C-alpha cells in the first residue's frame, strides 16, 4: 500500500510539474502547480515529515497558489498575441534545455546514492518537539532574522503596491 502510494505521488508530482511548463493558460499552470505541491506533500508524509507536509499545503497550496491565481485574474493577460522569437534567443533556449536534460539523464543513468534502510534510521522529522527544540536553541538567530525578513517583505509589498504620482507622495 505504501509503495503504491509512493509511486502515485511521484507520478503526480512529475506529471503535474510538466503541466506547469506545458500549459499555455496561466490558470491551468497554477492548477498544475497546486497538484504538484500536493504530490510533494504526500512524499513528505512518506518521509515522516508530517509537520512539513502540513505547512507546505498551508503555505504553498493555501496562500501562494491562491495569490498567483488572484494576480492572474487581476492582470488578465490571456489574450496577448504570441511574440515572434528571434533566432539567437531560441538557439540559446534549446542549448540550455538540452544541457538541463543531459544533466538529468546522467543522474538517472549513473546516480547511485547509498540508501540506508529507513526503518533502521530514526525518523526525527516526525517528532514535533524536536522542531521546537531546534528552532529555539540552535537556530534561534535564523528565526529572528526570518521574522525581520517577513516584516521587511511586508513593508516592501506595501511600498511597491502604493501609487506614487510625484515627489510629494514620497515625503
Amino acid at each position, binding site marked *: 500500500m505504501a509503495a503504491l502510494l509512493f509511486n502515485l505521488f511521484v507520478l503526480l508530482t512529475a506529471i503535474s510539474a510538466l503541466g*506547469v511548463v506545458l500549459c499555455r493558460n496561466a490558470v491551468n499552470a497554477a492548477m498544475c502547480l497546486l497538484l504538484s505541491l500536493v504530490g510533494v506533500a504526500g512524499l513528505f508524509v512518506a518521509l515522516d515529515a508530517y509537520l512539513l507536509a502540513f505547512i507546505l499545503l498551508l503555505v504553498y497550496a493555501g496562500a501562494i497558489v491562491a495569490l498567483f491565481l488572484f494576480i492572474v485574474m487581476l492582470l488578465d493577460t490571456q489574450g496577448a498575441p504570441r511574440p515572434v522569437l528571434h533566432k539567437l534567443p531560441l538557439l540559446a533556449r534549446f542549448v540550455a534545455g538540452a544541457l538541463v536534460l543531459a544533466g538529468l539523464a546522467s543522474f538517472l543513468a549513473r546516480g547511485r546514492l547509498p540508501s540506508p534502510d529507513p526503518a533502521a534510521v530514526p525518523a526525527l522529522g516526525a517528532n514535533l518537539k524536536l522542531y521546537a527544540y531546534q528552532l529555539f536553541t540552535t537556530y534561534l538567530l535564523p528565526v529572528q532574522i*526570518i521574522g525581520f525578513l517577513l516584516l521587511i*517583505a511586508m513593508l516592501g509589498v506595501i511600498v511597491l503596491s502604493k501609487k506614487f504620482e510625484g515627489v510629494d507622495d514620497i515625503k
Partner: protein
Amino acid sequence: MLPATLNTYIALSVALFAIGLLGVLVRRNTLVVFMCLELMLVASTLALVAFSRFNGTMDGNVFVFFILTVAAAEVAVGLAIIVALFRRRQTIQVDELNALKN
C-alpha cells in the same frame, strides 16, 4: 514500480528542478516563470527532507522550515513587483520587458 529509496527521491528532486529550470528558460509569461521558480524551490526542499530522513538528522527539516518562510516572502514581493510592472508597462511578457537592453 519505483523503490522508495534515497536515490528515487533525489532523482525526482533533480527532475523537478530540471523541469522548473526548463520552464524559466522557455516560458514568456512572467507569472508562469515565477511559478516555475517556486517549483525549483520545492525541488530543493524535497531533496533536503529526503537526505534528512535517510541520514537520521534534523537540520534538513528545519532548513525546509526557513525555505518555506522565505518562499512566502519572496512570492509576496515578486507578485507586487509584477503588478507594479504591469501598471507601468501594460505587459508582463518577458520579451517585451527589455528597457535595460541598450
